[in-house]
């Protein structure tokens, strides 16, 4: 998962750092936040809200981001919004009617994914066709075959699974260009702003992770729910 920090003033992106390197988020995140605020000449006390990617994704990465966002929101006494990483990725595709499928690598030969439809103007909201889940890519592809329209794929999972999608769906698979596949804080902030407009009372208490998976120990204890993972609700 990329480490990304952005500062949004109303609709304007003042700045964004996105790093896709191996150094740990734990070491990187706070220095990046501090540096971005300095570069943008914004004092931390001027922040009006904080948004953070809540998952799905790397458990540890999500927790570092959420713990940081929670601490900032609590310490500054400002609202906070948790944003689905899949929805944030889908924000990059603004074509009315488009089917959008963000895909993230979930390890253990699985992906985190969902299918959205961009609603017509002026709302342009995201309609959820297949709810976010962790599962085998092949079962997701089977679901996608039941739609006739082209599907726009995005997300970091494409670097591993892009060619498989093109093989299975042919010309119906449209892959986002590589630099736009990464989780970007600018999109998280954008989506967070929408959530806070609809619900201004959100606080750090609602900043909860979206894991989509139980801890390994619970799964081994035989508590995993059975059934299909990519359910779909169309």
């Amino acid at each position, binding site marked *: 998962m990329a480490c990304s920090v952005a500062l949004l003033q109303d609709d304007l992106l003042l700045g964004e750092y996105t790093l896709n390197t191996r150094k740990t988020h734990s070491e990187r995140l706070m220095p990046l936040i501090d540096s971005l605020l300095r570069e943008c000449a914004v004092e931390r006390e001027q922040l009006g809200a904080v948004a953070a990617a809540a998952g799905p994704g790397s458990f540890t990465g999500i927790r570092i981001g*959420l*713990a940081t966002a929670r*601490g900032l929101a609590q*310490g500054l006494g400002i609202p906070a919004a948790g944003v689905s990483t899949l929805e944030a990725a889908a924000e990059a595709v603004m074509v009315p009617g488009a089917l959008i499928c963000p895909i993230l690598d979930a390890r253990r030969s699985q992906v985190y994914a969902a299918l959205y439809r961009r609603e017509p103007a002026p709302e342009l909201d995201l309609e959820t066709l297949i709810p976010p889940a962790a599962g085998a890519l092949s079962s997701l592809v089977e679901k996608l075959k039941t739609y006739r329209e082209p599907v726009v794929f995005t997300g970091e999972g494409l670097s591993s699974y892009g060619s498989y999608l093109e093989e299975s769906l042919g010309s119906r698979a449209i892959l986002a260009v590589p630099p736009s596949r990464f989780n970007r804080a600018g999109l998280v902030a954008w989506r967070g702003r929408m959530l806070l407009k609809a619900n201004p009372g959100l606080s750090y208490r609602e900043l*909860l992770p979206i894991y989509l998976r139980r801890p390994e120990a619970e799964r081994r204890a035989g508590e995993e729910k059975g059934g299909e993972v990519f359910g779909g609700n169309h």
Partner: protein
Amino acid sequence: MNRHRKGILILGLETSCDETAAAVVEDGSRIICSLIASQVEIHSRFGGVVPEIASRRHLETINELVDRALTEASINLQDLDAVAVSNGPGLVGPLLVGVATAKALAYAARLPLVAVNHLEAHLYANFLTGHAIDYPLVALIASGGHTELLHLPAPGKPVVLGRTRDDAAGEVFDKVSRAMGLGYPGGPVIDRLGAEGDPERITFPRAYLDDNGRFDFSFSGLKSAVINYLHHSRQRGEEVNAADLAASFQSAVVEVLVDKTVDAARECRVKSVLLAGGVAANSRLRRCMRERLARNLPGISLHIPPLELCTDNAAMIAAAAFPPYREGRFAPLHLNAVPGLRSGCS
């Protein structure tokens, strides 16, 4: 809420294992409030701490615990002088939650951040009792995760004299307890049972190690000896006297801990000896240490924390942060969790 305290107020956070804890301590010595959200029950059905489950729980718990701590202390975040957090040793997932939370809180409130070594912090539980403690001192820290003998010539300057080469002292109590079918945690059960038994009934090995590591500890040989004893007795169909076995095992652990601590105290010419960590709750250890010091090194004062401060808590983190706070040794924004953090290098 107005600031009405004159001293230095430090908020301590602790998430290195399965306890989420937050505390406010004044001047490194007075507990304003100390809160612990224990996860023991959640993990008990897995027979040990599950790091992923602990990490999830810490994240869901810690901010509200901070809010409650501030409310109980009748202060705002701005009334604090620093935020302190343990960044190791411990489990990496749980530590990361505490470190990220502490960094963000300190940054938001423009407070200095102090990184604390969890293991060393245990000895600072002794500074929360109101008794004056004279330096130099020697501290024995023994719990389920660690066994270390530290020498502190002055505040905040620990030198490691020795550490365990295999099992921690508390760990052998748990393992022996499990082998005897007494359950978890093993410390209190063996302590209670051992009090009724004969500690000289069975002779178990005491590992004193060679000259190079004579302040190091090794308990795995003792653990194997107890398990073998149980095994052979069962094979021969002999009934094991559980009280005698518990007493004999406990006496072997305690004797080594006491001998090495007293030797270290003599050699370092200290004024005080400190016990800390969960094993410091053991009544035989407390008694034997007191008797041996009184007999061999009269004039040295022994300090043992109250039971509730022997196990993991955040008050000890805030107390341990006081010396570095006064010296201006603050942690940078890139502070990371260090699961294998060694003493003397936080």
